[in-house]
Structures are given as structure tokens and as C-alpha cells.
């Protein structure tokens, strides 16, 4: 095997524990790629003193100047920031209101399991597995329904593309932004969780607010 240029000298090639002394350091020089770091000249004594006292006092001046203002801290979670109506929070899946089936209280699901939301999702966090509706087991209005519908909210970037992609307005972005949890897997929202009536815990911003 021809020894490559820039490798160690002599027969030490490949041997573990080659000491630095035997390394041909020049061979490792990166050459023209090195750019010297540009530094400003070190400040002189006058400049240092100016910085230490005058600039510090100027900063403190700004701080004390705000003392009389009221605090802007929001006392979360006792107090919640209201959101705009088009705020994109946690998703909701919807049902038709007028088609209760087989004695069930709720109507048919709007989602037909077409996976278009999953295709649109840039974070790839929606997983849909569809199945076929039968007359005995009808879940949605079309031929197919979503047997599994999951959104991994720890990955979601709340872009709202899924809402735009859905041909049946089955999925919309809600207002809920309180999505922390102790376990990552609990942030994978299943179809049941997304269909359930969400807690109305996020205040909506009023007009002009």
C-alpha cells in the first residue's frame, strides 16, 4: 500500500499510542485555509476606567429609571394571556352534529382518514391508519375512516398546514396552548383525545383588546 502524503513519518503509521514528539506537525498544517483572527487592540487604562464606572452607572440609570413602572409579568398559571381567534393551538377533530348513529350520542366523524394532513405536515408528526366503514360499524360518512389518528404534539410546530390540507374541515387548530407534560409519550394525542371536547381554559382576546 502506498503511504498517503501527510501521514506520519517512518514506520509508526497506524500504530496506536504514537507520541506527539514523533508527529510531523508541519505535515498537519492546514495551509492557506487558516485566517488569522482579527482582534481589536486591548483598551488602554483610560478606556478601562471609563467602562468600569461611567458605563456601569449609565446602565444602572436605565434600571432605576424603570422602578416606578408597574410590573409586566403575567401571573401564569393563575392568569392567562388571551389569544387571538386565529391563534393556532392544540388541534381538534370534529364530528358532524346532525348524524348520531346507532343510538350513540355523537355524530359521525368528519375525518375520513385520507392522510392528506399527514402529507402536508412539515414536521411529519401525524400518523393516520385508515380502515373501511361497514354498515354495522360506521364511523365516518365516507367509505373509509381513520382507525388510528395520532398527532405527536412534541414535534408539531403549529404551522396549521394540516388544517389547510383537510378536505373536510375535520381537523382545526384550537386555542389551547397548555401542552406541557411529564412524559413525552403523553404528548402523542390519539383520536379519542383529539375528538373529546377540549377544556376551554384559554381566554380569547376580545375585539380591540
Amino acid at each position, binding site marked *: 500500500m502506498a503511504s498517503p502524503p501527510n501521514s506520519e513519518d517512518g514506520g509508526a503509521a497506524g500504530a496506536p499510542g504514537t507520541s506527539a514528539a514523533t508527529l510531523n506537525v508541519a505535515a498537519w498544517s492546514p495551509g492557506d485555509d487558516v485566517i488569522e483572527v482579527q482582534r481589536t487592540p486591548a483598551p488602554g487604562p483610560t478606556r478601562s476606567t471609563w467602562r468600569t464606572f461611567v458605563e456601569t452607572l449609565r446602565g444602572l440609570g436605565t434600571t432605576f429609571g424603570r422602578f416606578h413602572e408597574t410590573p409586566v409579568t403575567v401571573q401564569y398559571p393563575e392568569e392567562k394571556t388571551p389569544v387571538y381567534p386565529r391563534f393556532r393551538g392544540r388541534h381538534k377533530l370534529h364530528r358532524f352534529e346532525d348524524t348520531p348513529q346507532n343510538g350513540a350520542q355523537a355524530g359521525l366523524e368528519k375525518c*375520513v*382518514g*385520507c*392522510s*392528506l394532513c*399527514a*402529507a402536508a405536515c412539515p414536521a411529519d408528526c401525524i400518523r*393516520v*391508519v*385508515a*380502515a*373501511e366503514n361497514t354498515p354495522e360499524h360506521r364511523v365516518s360518512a*365516507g*367509505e*373509509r375512516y381513520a382507525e388510528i389518528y395520532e398527532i405527536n404534539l412534541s414535534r408539531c410546530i403549529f404551522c396549521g398546514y394540516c388544517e389547510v390540507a383537510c*378536505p*373536510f374541515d375535520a381537523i382545526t387548530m384550537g386555542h389551547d396552548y397548555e401542552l406541557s407534560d411529564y412524559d413525552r409519550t403523553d404528548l402523542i394525542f390519539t383520536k379519542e383525545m383529539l375528538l373529546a371536547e377540549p377544556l376551554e381554559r384559554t381566554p380569547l382576546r376580545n375585539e380591540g383588546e
Partner: protein
Amino acid sequence: MPRPESKTITFTIDGREVSAPENTMLVDAAKLGDVEIPVFCYEPKLGQPVGACRMCLVEIEGIPKLQTGCSTPVKDGMVVYTQSDRVTIAQQAVVEFLLINHPLDCPVCDKGGECPLQDITFGWGGGISRFVEPKRHFVKPLELSPLIAIDRERCILCYRCVRFSQEISEDYQLVLLDRGAHSYVATFDGHPYVAPFSGNIVELCPVGALTSRAYRFRARPWDIESAGSVCTLCPAQCNVAVTVRDERALRVLAREHPEVDDGWLCDKGRFAYQSFHVPERITQPLVRDGGFLRPVSWERALDEASAGLRRAGARAAGVAAGTTTSEEGLLLARLLREGLGSPHLDARRSGTVSTGLARALAAPALQARVSDLEFAHAVLVLDTEPVDDAPILDLRLRKGVRRHRTKLAVASPGATTLAEPATLCVRFAPGAGAAFAVALAAALRGEDHAALARDAGAEADQVAALSDLLRGSESDEAQGPHEVVILWGERLTAGDSADHGAQALLSLADALGLADTDGAGLLEIPAHANGRGLREAGVLPNAGPGYGELAGAAGRDAAGIAAGLAAGELSAVYLLHCDPLRDLPDRQAWGEALASASTVVAHASHLTQGIREHADVVFPAEAYPEKEGTVVHPDGRVQRLRPAIAHPGEVRHEWRVLAELAERAGLELTLHSGAAAAELLYASVPFYAGLTLDEIGGRGVRWQERAAATELGAAAPPAPGPGAASASAGEAAAYRSLWDAPEVEFSPTLEFLFPHPELLADDRAASAELLAPELETAS
């Protein structure tokens, strides 16, 4: 028959000069210049274009009206426009018309995302529809067959499915009924469309009108990955693409290979993947304990198997069948021969062909390719029923007859489905294939064949007619050498008449000059999917890898093993993908043999009767998309299986299991990867020498076309003896079609094609009992 040749011409398309072979259709020629002409009904695989959809309209200088690009052959100097205003307006109008009655239910349609109608509407459509009247409606979806659902509203009447049924599979079941906008695809009288190749129409349909009931709604194109593989459920070894989602096979599509499958699949290949993911599948090792098979750890199963085999030593035997790869075959052979010192090993259903004859039959010059079936002047189908043995060849034979006027002759013991395209059908007595071949060879040599024909139960003048057909007439001779392909089944060399059959074939080949004619030859359909590969890997009682000589004496063949086990001369048997009660002739003998064997080690994926009643150790077998290994097509094409889906449960690579057992038996293999196992195989078989996985690639390579092919030291075959071949009727009675397989039995939508419904309930119940989840955790 000469393959079509054509000269190259130059034409202009959208202002670009493009060279293309003369007389290709404009649609194809345009592609050579990177111009896409949208099509719906055009599909070259279906034969002549019909021009049904009008989507491919183009403007050709000098012709006043727009022309269909799919049915206009390109000529020198043609000037074509595909983007002029006239063409654009016409294309938009066609799309608008097609969508008039289209339900546009893409979100619930299974084709959505991979739908040519969506793509073409997006690319060439006008974007709006002016149609506000009610659309045509049908009940939907309807069951066209247990495998296929039809949605007539979505149908754009492209005729593809009907043409397939009428002109490719020639089952004539699908028709278009009614007229005009009311036309719809149907079967006569609403009968279900049940045919061996029906699944192909799902892949052909350019819209979501025909969908697979097994795949319906399982996934979207963006949820899936496609993995190339080779279907090893029958010897035809069609190239397939497995659709994978969540590490499971969801669908199998054709991966067109003109030298193997021509782009079609049979329904077994297309739908039997379901059996890989059923609860009845064995996914962990089982060991018989107190009379019952119980799930155990791998360690325990390997211990039991290796102890049992070691106890038997030279009294062990092995039988390989099914989807066994060549590597697994080789490792089994080495385990038995070198590890245990036993020569008893077989991968044939019955009978043994002596090594010299086997080599002579495998001679590269005698070997026909699959495409030769299509272009030969005459094809003789001898003692095989392609639709039951290697279905895809049935379509190839029909194509040859229909498009190239190949003369087809069928010699078989029973009725054949090829009777209609065949020029001549000859019958002989069941099991008398070898005797018939002897009679035919005599007739071809111009000898007196009447007595020989009578021995074979055939009529002498029919044999004479067949020999005339194969020899060809004077006028044929004027067109160059007469190409004849003989497609023969392994049954011809079954039982005691194995050598007679082989000799008769060689003398037929000799009389017809097959070895000297390019495009002529013999093509065998082995009984097992990788039959050829296993034999070449040395899974034979009388030959080592590459039909090499054995160091010691020859062992027993499959029937001999059964007899030996029953008589107590052998004590253990290793069954690789083989349930002898099902896969081998003489069920009764095997029943006794397995009952008296002290150790039965089996690789099985389902608990069929032989396994569940007799196996002592069961290793879970891999399905073909899980395997890594080499298989060999009947025409010598070495193909490669690469893992496409994950192993369910505790399934392991079978070559690993065999290597482990071989090492426990004292062999030094040190195989660490499937590639290393392949290397071992290629180094062991002389005529595979130097093969690499890169060379095999995704399309395979025929070893006969490589330099190493000369390594098959051709032995001069003994002179053909007189035809004393006896009819072995038992063998014919035990004839088994490829639909009689656990893959069919355990696939929910395919099970209606399983020929033994009475076995089904038993097998299901036994599997449910044994493989119930409680039991699995209990041990």
C-alpha cells in the same frame, strides 16, 4: 424466430430533433426527447394500442386533424407538436369530459396520491369544470371478486382491464356492458371475476376504479416505502416490489423484468403476502414437550435440535423445498455431509437423475431463456401445467401465440388450460411423461414409434403430428434455423424413470438440434420454487455443489429417506420449508416415516399437519421478503433476495440458524453476514465463481452467460436407451398445484382459492390453540 429489429430515424417534436427506433409509438418516442405525452389507455404490455381515451392527442405537420400519439408510429422526418394551442385545448377538453362523470372522491379513493387521473388533471387539465348537471351514479364499491373491489363511478372506460382479460390472460371474463356514458365494466351475469391473474387489473387501472380488497385503505403513497424483491412462492420467481409500511408488507406489485415475468404477477404472488402477518404464523421456536409443541427460547430449541441431530449422526437426513434459498441449501448440505457424516439429502420431489445426465441437462447451450418461449417457432409444453406450476409462463406462452404466431403444442396426461391457444394437444397416460418423450424422440429420428407410443398411452399418429410440428415445415426452414423450446416439468424425471426421462429429453434435444440453435433449448419447471438453485448448491443425494462428484457413496433420495425412516434405518430428519405430508408424494409413507423418526427438525412458518403432529423442534421460518439469500430461476438467472420487512416476533435469519447448528456439529464457518453466506455459496459452486452481489444487482444474472459457465464440466451423456420407462401413476396422483400452499391457505382474502378447504379449519384451530398469546408468555 428473429427478434424484432428496427432502424433509427429522426423526427422533430416541439422543435427538438430526436432519434428514435422507427415505428415506435409517438408516446414512447417522445420520451426519448424528454417530452411527456399524457396517456390513460396506452399500455405497451397490453399489445396493440386501442386509442380509447384520446388523452394523447398531438398535432402532426401535414395531417389536418389531431392524432393519437399512442397509436401513431413515428416516421422519419415527422414534425410533431405537443404544446400548441390546438393540442392544449384538446387536452383540456378531454380531461373535462373524463371528469364529467368522475366522482372526484379522491380523499376516500385508494388511488389518491398515485393516480394518473389526478396527475394528468393537474398537469394538462383546464382547472375548472363547466358541468353542473347530475353525474352518473352506481352502487359502490362492489365486490368484483373476493380480491378486487370495483367502483364504477370512477371508471374512465380506458378498456385496460377488459383488454387484459381478453388478450393477455385470455379468460374472457371481463366485458364492457351498455353503451356511451352508461358503459360499465362487468362480468357476464355478475359472476365474480375469479382467474389466476385477476390481480393484475388492479395495477393496470389508471384510476381508483379497481382496488385490491386486501390493500384498500391500508396506506397512502407517502406512508410507504417500496422494496424490490423476488417472489419465491413458485419457480417462476417473478420480480416484485413489496410495499412496506411500519415494517410490514402491505402490497406486492410487479417489478417488470422482460426476461422473467414481463410485468405481470399471478394472484398468489400478488396476494399471498397476507399470510406473513397473520396470527397463525409461527414467530418463535417450538419444542415438543410431553407430546405438545411449546414455545421455547432459541437457545433451548437450538440445543434440542443439535442434540437430536448429533444422536442420529450419519442416520440423519434432510429435505429442502419451498422458499429455501441456495445458501440455506448449501448450509444444510454441509451440516449433514460434513457435520453429521450423512449423505441423505434431497431437494427433488421424487427420483434421482444421475450426475452426468443432470450436467448434460444443465449445459448452457441447451438452456432456453424465458423470452425464448415467446419468440420460438414452436414450443412444446411437456408434462407440466404452467398455470399450476409456474403461472407467469402461461401468460408468456399465450403472448407468443398471439403476437408472434408461435406454434404451441401441449403434451400432458390431463386436460390443459392451454388447449385454446395450442395448435396441438397430445395426451399420454398419467406418469408416462418419460415414456412419451422416448416415443417422441423416436418419431423425430424417423424410427418406428408406434409401440413406444402405445407404451406411453399416446396415439401414434398424434406423436407423429407432434414431431412434424416440432421439426417445422420446409417454408419455415427458409427463414433460418427452426427454433424449438421444450418447457418440461420436473415430473418428467420423477420416480424410477428419472434417468429415462432425462435421457429422452437429451435425445429430443439432439434430434431437434436445440444445442446448436440460438433461441432454442430446454426449460425445466422444477417442483420447488428454488429447485434449480438447491440442486446447484448440492442439495442432492448424488451430487455436491455444482453437480460435483461426492467424496463418499451417494445417499438416499426423498422417497428413500421416507423408507429409511419408516424402517428405522434413519432416525432424524431435517425439514427445510417442507411439510412432507403436503409437499412430497406418498403422503402415507411420509406419515409413517415421520411418526417413527426420533427427531424431526423443521423450519416452518405455519403449523400444517405434518409439522404440528410430528415435528420435535420447529424453528420459525422467514417469509421471502425477510430473507437474505440467493435463488436461481429455472433458466439459470441468479437472483437475490434482500430483506424488505422486519422479522416478526423472534424469527431469525434461517441461514444463521443452519450455520449455528453446523458449527455446533463441528464445522468452522464463521459466517457473520448474509453476504458472507453468499460468498461461501459462490465459492462452492464452480460455475458461480466470481459472482458478486453487485453483479446480481436487482435484475439478476444468468450464470450461463458468464465466463465461469464453462466450469460445469459437461459429462458425455450415456447413449439414449430404449424406452422402458414405466408409468408411475402414484407420482401423478400426488401432483400438487401451487395454490395448495400454506401461503394461500392463511391469506384471508386468498383462502377461497385453497384447494383443500377441509384442512383449513383444522390448521386454523391448531394454530390458534398453540400460538395463542397466553401460551406464548406462559413458557
